[in-house]
């Protein structure tokens, strides 16, 4: 009898643990609603969501990378570079000195070209990691600096301002990415779309299961016939794509692109993923969890700002929250392992 009671207790704790990110988010929202005037309003909600879209999309790319057991430190710098590429194309066009002309592209083309730049950086990451056998941390640390350097080189460190295009050039409309669609920020719409696609791929396609397997046990995955190097490269390309989209949204939201945009954002992306239950050891993670993680970071950021907590204290508190999240995560995994062993012994 005592045994069955313990099993029930474990199951209750487990359910609570599994829903913990949502519970924490709810508690935070309630907390800030009570202590801060005007927090629980549609306007604040939309502002928070606008910020969350940035960490969220980047975090989903990061989640994929973390699932394979890797890490992508270049995401923030690639986002910055994407903003500079897009801003440059709209304000200056593609300058071809040998012909003495500048080519201007329509906003959708700018979007596509910039996305390709992000994907190319992802491919570079993947190639360095899988073909040259450089560990992901170092490989992406290198490309992070390359991307940051290139974004400064693009404008000599200056900002591209007022990137709305000109009607005469037919390249208007890029700033729509920073506006609202039916009252919802476009970034949030993109976040939802990307999250749904990423979630479906992870759960319902062989590619999704293959990357889960690679992170769980790379050797076993290889021996099972999974094309480990190709799949890893694809994952970094996806992360690069996400980063470039984030860079464009950020530029569109500000209607300007600055070469330092995205500095330190890789940490927000990692935090969002980890808060959402992604394992740094690989093999575990979901897109939905990362979104909730991104919302937690967003609510803490904006909530504390509205409450008047200094930026310095915000950093301290965010650091504590991330560490706590990992500690709870480990507790959950241990409990899970314990319950699995229990089931094994009962089967005997």
């Amino acid at each position, binding site marked *: 009898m005592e045994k069955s009671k313990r099993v029930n207790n474990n199951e209750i704790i487990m359910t609570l643990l599994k829903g913990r990110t949502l519970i924490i988010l709810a508690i935070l929202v309630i907390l800030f609603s009570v202590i801060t005037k005007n927090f629980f309003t549609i306007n604040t909600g939309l502002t928070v969501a606008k910020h969350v879209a940035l960490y969220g999309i980047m975090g989903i790319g990061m989640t994929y990378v973390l699932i394979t057991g890797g890490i992508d430190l270049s995401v923030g710098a690639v986002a910055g570079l994407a903003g500079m590429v897009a801003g440059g194309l709209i304000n200056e066009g593609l300058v071809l000195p040998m012909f003495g002309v500048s080519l201007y592209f329509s906003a959708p083309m700018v979007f596509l070209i910039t996305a390709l730049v992000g994907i190319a950086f992802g491919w570079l990451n993947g190639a360095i990691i899988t073909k040259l056998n450089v560990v992901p941390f170092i490989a992406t640390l290198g490309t992070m600096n390359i991307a940051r350097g290139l974004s400064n080189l693009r404008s000599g460190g200056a900002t591209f301002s007022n990137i709305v295009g000109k009607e005469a050039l037919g390249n208007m409309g890029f700033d729509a990415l920073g506006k609202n669609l039916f009252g919802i920020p476009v970034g949030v719409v993109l976040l939802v779309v990307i999250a749904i696609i990423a979630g479906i791929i992870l759960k319902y396609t*062989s590619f999704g299961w293959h990357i889960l*397997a690679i992170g769980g*046990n790379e050797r076993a995955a290889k021996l099972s*016939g999974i094309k480990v190097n190709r799949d890893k490269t694809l994952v970094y390309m996806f992360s690069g794509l996400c980063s470039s989209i984030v860079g464009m949204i950020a530029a569109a939201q500000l209607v300007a692109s600055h070469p330092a945009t995205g500095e330190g954002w890789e940490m927000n992306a990692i935090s969002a993923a980890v808060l959402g239950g992604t394992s740094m050891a690989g093999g575990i993670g979901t897109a939905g969890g990362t979104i909730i993680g991104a919302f937690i970071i967003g609510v803490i950021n904006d909530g504390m700002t509205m409450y008047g907590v200094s930026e310095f204290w915000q950093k301290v508190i965010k650091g504590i929250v991330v560490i706590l999240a990992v500690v709870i995560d480990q507790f959950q995994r241990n409990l899970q392992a*314990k319950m699995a062993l*229990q089931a094994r*012994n*009962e089967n*005997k």
Partner: protein
Amino acid sequence: MNQNVVLNVENIDKIYPGTKALDQVSYQVEKGKVNVLIGENGAGKSTLMKIIAGIEQPSSGKMFMDGKEVFFKDTTEAREHGIGIIHQELSLFPNLNVYQNIFMGRECTQGAKLNNKKHVELTDKVLAKLEHPIDAETLVGDLRVGQQQMIEIARNFIQDDLKILIMDEPTSSLSQQEVEVLFRLMREFTQHGISIVYISHRLEEIMKIGDNVTILRDGKYVARAEVSDIDVPWIVQQMVGEGKSYPKKNRNVNWKEKETVLEVKDLTLPKSGGGYLLDHVSFHLKKGEVLGIYGLMGAGRTEVFECLMGLRPEHTGEVLLNGQPVEVKNISEQIDRGFALIPEDRQREGLVQTLNIGKNISLSSLKKYCRFGFLNGKKENASIDKQIKDIMIKVADKKLPILSLSGGNQQKVVIGKGILTNPEILLLDEPSRGIDIGAKTEVFDIIHQYAERGLSLIVISSELKEIVAIADRVIVLSNGINTGEFEQDEISEDVLVLSSYKGHHGHETKKENS
């Protein structure tokens, strides 16, 4: 009480959440003897040893050494009482050299400075005694597994006041010669009054080296006997609780009439630093045949599989599949061609621990259940269920983590994964390693069953009894050379062992066989 008992364990219980690993177990270690402890996986052997070595503490019960009650709260306390343990899994530092490994945690110092001269000196001495002179400065990661095992053993041998040495499956990765050296040393130790507690799955070994045998089953004490009074069938009977041994099959097949599925000619794999891992190895495989590959550690058995699966692109030689020459390039192509591999190391190479049971089974064949990259869950689940039933994996729910299965059932999951790719040729590398006798018999049944259905199998095994029981034909590898081939009635333990040493006498034998 017996005068010769150095350690007396009385009525030990060990309770883990939800399970009783040890149930009122009493156990005596006799002085200067090889005390063998056996039982199937999960019988509680390792738990009992961990308690004696101070790694775990009993839930209740007492331990006495030389009549005085003792309690070890950690390994350091156990070590102070002269108890050392050699683990089943190696616990070495591959990034450090030989002497650093041996003296880790008990460094010799001059003031605050490490006395490395002394370390090297003592290391050379102990390794000479073990008849394994290895340069003390070599990185342990660069050593063969068998050599690493020797380092692990050497680590314990440098302890001066050793009273009890626990050895948990020390021979599982040693070659025959290395085992001989180890046994000689064990005898030397017992003559000096040191007691050895010896855990092994290899019953022949136990009969050879053991003085007395204690058998555990399901966490309970079952029997104890002097080795001179018993035989292997008796031990097996006590372990499984009923008379169970490997069934020898008799297949009346005229192999000459069967078509050849696979032919391998002059398979050669160079060794880094000169020589060959595989030296012009040739063999063939008939449809529905079980071909055994026997050999000592490092004889090149696993390398044959690695070449066939495309994991060793540097190999040379010819591979013909159904008469057609194929170019072996990478593993996914080989799987598509109808090869499947059950790797040797279940945990490291076979399973993805973060995925559930069902996914581990379907992992290799997900493409089959996909349309435009999307998985057809129904089709996938139906295949998984069929496979689970087909090879009798005991699963409560296929969505449970893989960790919830016993070792034997985990192995069946790996085998199921291979079979689900619908292979023509199944390569099994030590399919029964580390699983209990009951599960072994079931694995052999699976092998028979699929051979009867026309699947061609190659099985690597280092357990003689096994290979004799399951193989229709056996080839023996020794030092990368094919040193013998035996069919049906010719297969006996003696001839296999004899052949397995031939490759070490230089290269004259090579010409006869290639």
